[in-house]
């Protein structure tokens, strides 16, 4: 089946993405510059303790951050550099922003990837089971647990997991050790608690969405048709019902992927001391490291836009009825 309209659609979406990104960049820029605080503020305790002339130091630091120029000039400079592919220099970590991102994305990525897989696989399986066994005791238990799962604050769950598994039982380390090789069992073990922390909410959400989406579809006529054909229940549910139930699930899973880096993943990174992108970006905010804040916002934005687009395109394959014109 030819999908030539899809190419037009992608081009449209890309143009649209650039416009959105520009809007977001501008808002971020304005936000970080209109605030009353200065990057020099956090040094003042130190400087005062050493008896320094604070005004002079503030001026020196602001000059080095490029904040002494007029705001519009800074904006143009920033956008200009960006267009040339230069994300700038991170003052709070003393390395090019691009390198900073390159060294830290993997920590977030592995966490998010594992959590998503854990949550999606388990969530979908439980959701399907629960839907098929609707109104049985197991269904009630799973539904209730899923309510608990979505209601538990992830950061609190992380703290509790540490309390139980690290402090009381001593099974897991309470922090993530970056020294472990990426593809090793130890690394996987180190990620168990973080993945549970981040994944539980997602998992519970997926259970609920899968269950309701499956229930919607299990009531449909084509399920009776499929059964009337003599198909085994596994095929009826796995092929006929689930393929139809997948669509809303994909939306929600993709949305989670796009929004989790700077939400749940960040909180998890804080609790377990994982130096991922979430930590990098929020530390940059606290350090007034504008080039990093801007770049991370930009990356976050593009990621969301890209995931949205990927979702839309995935739809056209999952549901032949969908067309974008």
């Amino acid at each position: 089946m030819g999908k030539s309209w899809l190419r037009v659609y992608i081009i449209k979406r890309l143009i649209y993405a650039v416009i959105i990104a520009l809007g977001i960049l501008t808002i971020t820029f304005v936000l970080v510059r209109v605030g009353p605080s200065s990057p020099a503020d956090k040094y003042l305790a130190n400087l005062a303790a050493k008896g320094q002339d604070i005004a002079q130091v503030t001026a020196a630091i602001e000059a080095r951050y490029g904040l002494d120029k007029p705001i519009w000039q800074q904006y143009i400079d920033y956008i200009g550099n960006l267009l040339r592919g230069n994300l700038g220099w991170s003052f709070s970590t003393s390395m090019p922003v691009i390198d900073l991102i390159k060294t830290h994305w993997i920590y977030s990525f592995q966490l998010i990837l594992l959590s998503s897989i854990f949550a999606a696989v388990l969530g979908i399986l439980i959701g399907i089971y629960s839907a098929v066994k609707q109104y049985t005791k197991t269904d009630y238990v799973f539904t209730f647990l899923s309510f608990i799962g979505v209601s538990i604050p992830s950061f609190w769950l992380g703290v509790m997991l540490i309390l139980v598994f690290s402090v009381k039982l001593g099974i897991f380390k309470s922090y993530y050790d970056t020294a472990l090789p990426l593809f090793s069992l130890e690394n996987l073990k180190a990620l168990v608690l973080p993945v549970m922390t981040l994944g539980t909410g997602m998992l519970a959400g997926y259970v609920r969405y899968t269950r309701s989406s499956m229930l919607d579809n299990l009531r449909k006529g084509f399920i009776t048709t499929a059964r009337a054909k003599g198909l085994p229940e596994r095929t009826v549910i796995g092929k006929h019902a689930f393929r139809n139930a997948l669509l809303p699930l994909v939306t929600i899973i993709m949305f989670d992927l796009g929004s989790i880096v700077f939400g749940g993943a960040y909180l998890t990174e804080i609790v377990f001391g994982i130096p991922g992108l979430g930590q990098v970006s929020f530390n940059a905010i606290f350090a007034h490291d504008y080039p990093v804040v801007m770049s991370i916002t930009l990356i976050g934005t593009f990621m969301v836009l890209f995931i949205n687009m990927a979702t839309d395109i995935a739809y056209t394959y999952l549901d032949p009825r969908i067309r974008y014109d």
Partner: protein
Amino acid sequence: MRKARLFVALSLILAALFTSIACGGTQPPKPAGKQGGIFINGQAGGDAETLNWILAADASSSGYASHTVDSLATFNNKLELQLRCLAKDVEISQDGLVYTVTIRDDLKWSNGSQVTAEDYVYTLGNLMFSDWMNYPYKSMWQEEVAGNKVFVTPQVVNATTFTITRQTANPDFVYSIYDLQPYPKYIATKYEGDVKTFTEAPEFNNLTYTGNLGPYRFKEWNRNDKYVVERNPDYYLGRPIGAPYFDQYVIKLFGSSATMQAALEAGDITHCGIEPEKVNKFMGLKNIDVYTVPTTGYTLLAYNQRANGWEGLKKQAIRQALSMSINKETVSQSILLGFGQPAFSFLSPNSPLYDDKSVVKYGVGPLYDKEKAAEILYQEGYGVKQENGTIKATNKDGGLLQLVLVTDQASQASQDIALQVRKELLALGIETRVKLVPWPTLLDQYVRNKVPGSVKEAGYNNGHDAVSAESWDMMLIGLTGGLLSPTSAEVVFTTEGGMNYFGYSNPEVDELFRRLKTKEALDKNMRQQLSSKLSLLLSQDQPFDFVVFQKANQGFQKNVVGIEPGISMWYNYYLWRFE
């Protein structure tokens, strides 16, 4: 996580202080111990900002870099001078104006070339004193001559000797010299003149030049995670004995002190600081040693003596009365669980200049007396006698006396003490509103001041008539107490001092500080005398209530040997090793 910021900032300052002077030269060389192992130092604060330390304004950055480059000198736990990187001496001329520094002749940069006096003079003259660099701490190298701030003059004498010449005497200046670290001239000239390229210079950001100057060499710095340095076999101080002993020294960052301490308990890290509540637990652990050491960090309660503070605070008697009603023992026993020491002076009790007899001890013993405090307030017209005979503090017109106590919300210790102060003053009938504000707001709204209606931008001390945007009466802040150089407190206490935002003015104090920076203070006895006088004067006058000096608890794995607990315990850390 941010909550403990000020506290953390303080401990970082201390850590930096210790690590930057983490050397030791006159020590008799210890027998060669077992080499090997990784020392992991846990920290629950923020990461350093740069290894290009000359640009750093934060405390951790120079601490990170100093593992690879020693300073000129350091002090041991008894605050005795330990000369390092120096072959001979720092000699001060009779008139106190010329400092002659002689460095060792066996110091090498990474390319094998010798570290010379030229490098030091270049670092001072072409980097620290240059306009393009705008060195954050440049005022440490400036003096006031005929109303202008001018830099001191460095000069090369020969390959291992240079001089620094001042126009005015200042006995405390020598401490700036002791802390000096060199930049390699042969690399720095490449970047000279352009702060941007200098900032991004790979040699400085990766410390590739440090040769044999420090016990460790840079290995890896994973931001927000860990900083790793590895054993430097060429280390000039360790050469005869093979020190340092650890293969690697790691600074590992944690998101919270709880996980960090759990890691110490589990043996995943070698060392970290321990909060008062947990000391007992760690003392009970078989694998952990806990050392309680004094620090220079102290908390003080500033009384606003500017126009937008309560007018009573301008009177010495009232300030004394308030200080008299705040129990410092309670603060150090109940809040810090004993890991504190009542403070009566800006000088740390550990300072050789501190004289316990020349302070007035408000807030302890007979000078913790609420009745007497009430009586004073009553006599000054700020109180009414109640039917039962007790005195209730009031406003001048007999109304409810309300005071505003502001402090940084990030500091747990300050918050605790603020609430305790509120409780103590409530007993006098004073209602205190505790305002916890973020650090930037604190600076912007409460600290910075300007003369109303003037066009001059708000500063930290804009003269007698200036006031801050928000009015306040008391402020709890943390400062580093004077250890060796009393004049570092000058900015806070003198009328014109750059950090005197609370409007204190006492000509006698000004005069004593001035004299401490003159030639006469070069004389050790005179210096002691002047400091004691100043200490007494300030503890009488109570521009602040000096509340408490904190003690730190350092937890180590038991198998680390060679530690000398004390205020400067890191001074010989290159000799530490595992059993």
